[in-house]
């Protein structure tokens, strides 16, 4: 009962402090909001890019084609066309490479079907009639999945050292650009966020210190009467935590509202993008961002006010 009363006292006094000290509190809330807003925006972007990289990486594969007799466009030197045995052995060699996750054999028939589906869509069956023979006859290939995008070039170079290899298909542009962009964004925003953190800490500290000096008379009397350190201090700590929470709440509300807005704008404006880049939903982003921001807001508030009480409240 006594504990509950004390807790209520701390919360009540914490709120009272925030309001007693309106303008300072407002400034603190604003900086914390800004800080966490920047953090949240960066997080939302980074999380999306990360997600795209991951989806892209999952699909990162290269396809290796071999010379074949069926290929009429080229003449082949002696030994350039591998026999079936060699092709089977070669897959073992591929799989033995440390960069390689797995590989799939794609027969010429499969390749034709896939190609056709991509080009003609559902009407493929109708068109296929026009090609009684597989136009890709003999065009067997391996689809190779690498462990990381960065390893792709190495594998390509290795594959190209074999004379039996006709060509290697791969794409790396998107993935590389995305990861590069992510690194840049994280680096830049971390610096900015750190500065904002410091400013918020300073402002909260000042807000609480002002509150302490405004109430120094009362604090003095409390000490004579026999108030515990906890009783004197905790309202100020609560003040800091409340400011941090309100700031976090505001910034999260703002991001929640803006996220959907920006997303629909991007999707609408760059329709092509959205076909192969999939964005995270607000809820997916907030699953981590919301608790993270609230905890950070409270943390900044607590640390700022803790330092202030340490400095200005020698009990």
């Amino acid at each position, binding site marked *: *009962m*006594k504990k509950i*009363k*004390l807790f209520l*006292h701390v919360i009540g006094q914490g709120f009272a402090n925030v309001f007693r000290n309106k303008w300072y509190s407002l400034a603190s809330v604003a900086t914390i909001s800004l800080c966490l807003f920047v953090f949240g925006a960066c997080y939302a972007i980074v999380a999306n890019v990360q997600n795209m990289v991951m989806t892209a990486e999952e699909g990162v594969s290269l396809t290796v084609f071999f010379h074949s007799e069926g290929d009429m466009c080229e003449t082949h030197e002696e030994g350039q066309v591998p026999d079936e045995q060699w092709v089977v052995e070669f897959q073992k060699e591929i799989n033995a490479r440390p960069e390689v996750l797995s590989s799939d054999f794609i027969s010429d028939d499969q390749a034709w079907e896939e190609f056709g589906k991509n080009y003609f869509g559902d009407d493929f069956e109708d068109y296929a009639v026009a090609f009684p023979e597989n136009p890709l006859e003999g065009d067997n290939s391996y689809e190779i999945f690498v462990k990381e995008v960065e390893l792709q070039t190495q594998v390509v170079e290795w594959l190209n050292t074999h004379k039996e290899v006709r060509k290697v298909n791969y794409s790396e542009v998107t993935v590389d650009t995305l990861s590069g962009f992510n690194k840049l964004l994280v680096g830049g925003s971390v610096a900015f966020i750190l500065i904002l953190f410091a400013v918020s800490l300073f402002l909260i500290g000042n807000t609480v210190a002002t509150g302490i000096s405004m109430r120094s*008379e*009362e604090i*003095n*009397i*409390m*000490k*004579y*009467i*026999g*108030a*515990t*350190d906890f*009783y004197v201090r905790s309202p100020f700590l609560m003040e800091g935590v409340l400011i941090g929470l309100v700031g976090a709440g505001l910034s999260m509300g703002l991001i929640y509202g803006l996220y959907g807005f920006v997303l629909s704008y991007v999707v609408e404006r760059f329709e092509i993008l959205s076909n192969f880049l999939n964005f995270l939903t607000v809820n997916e982003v907030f699953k981590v961002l919301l608790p993270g921001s609230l905890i950070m807001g409270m943390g900044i508030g607590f640390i700022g006010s803790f330092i202030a009480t340490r400095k200005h409240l020698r*009990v």
Partner: protein
Amino acid sequence: MTKKEQMSLEREAFVNENGIIVLDNVSKVYSAGAPALNEVSITIGRGEFVFIVGDSGSGKSTLIKLLLRELKASSGSVTVLGYDMGKLTHRNVPKFRRRIGVVFQDFRLLSDRDVYANVAFAQRVIGVPEEEIKVNVPAILKTMGLAGKYKAKTNQLSGGEQQRVALARALVNRPEILLADEPTGNLDPRNSWEIMALLEEINQQGTTVVVVTHNKEIVNSMCKRVITMNRGVVVSDEEGGFYNEEN
């Protein structure tokens, strides 16, 4: 018996044997200059009423601060209510102070709150249940002759009334010792006498009372123990004493 109970009994035994306030060879030196207190030894028994008099700067307020553990002695030992002030940990200071009431010349009331709130404040700080506060505060205000003033803002009261509110606040938690540092310093003779009468009444109900004052007339007519200080030294300590200007 728990360790706490045992220590409490030991303190009680110390008080009964030696006194509720015991200063033994106490000196207090502020950062620079001559000591504010110089090898002072004073013993005050439970239930006594003591005046401390002396010129400005003789160390009276310093003495009060040592008794509240607001300051620590530079040397010697101060024991109040059986607590050794040199060994009292920061953590235990609140518990100790709850057994002491204190009033000052400048009242130190919360001017933005009414009389009732100022007194109730003292009880809330130490966690007294609200139902008890509702009984205790009116009772003490009545004793202090403030029955009709619950709702008045303290800055609208006369000096005498303000000091009575401060007294009510100091006494509502039923302290065993009441320390008063020039409680009548800002009051006219009539109000000064009223406050002194209240202090005497409190003392008669069993509270040990220590009053620092410059009021010669009152000291000389109340016939109490008078400790006279001069430049940090106790120059006289007499039962039924007088305020001697020669000291």
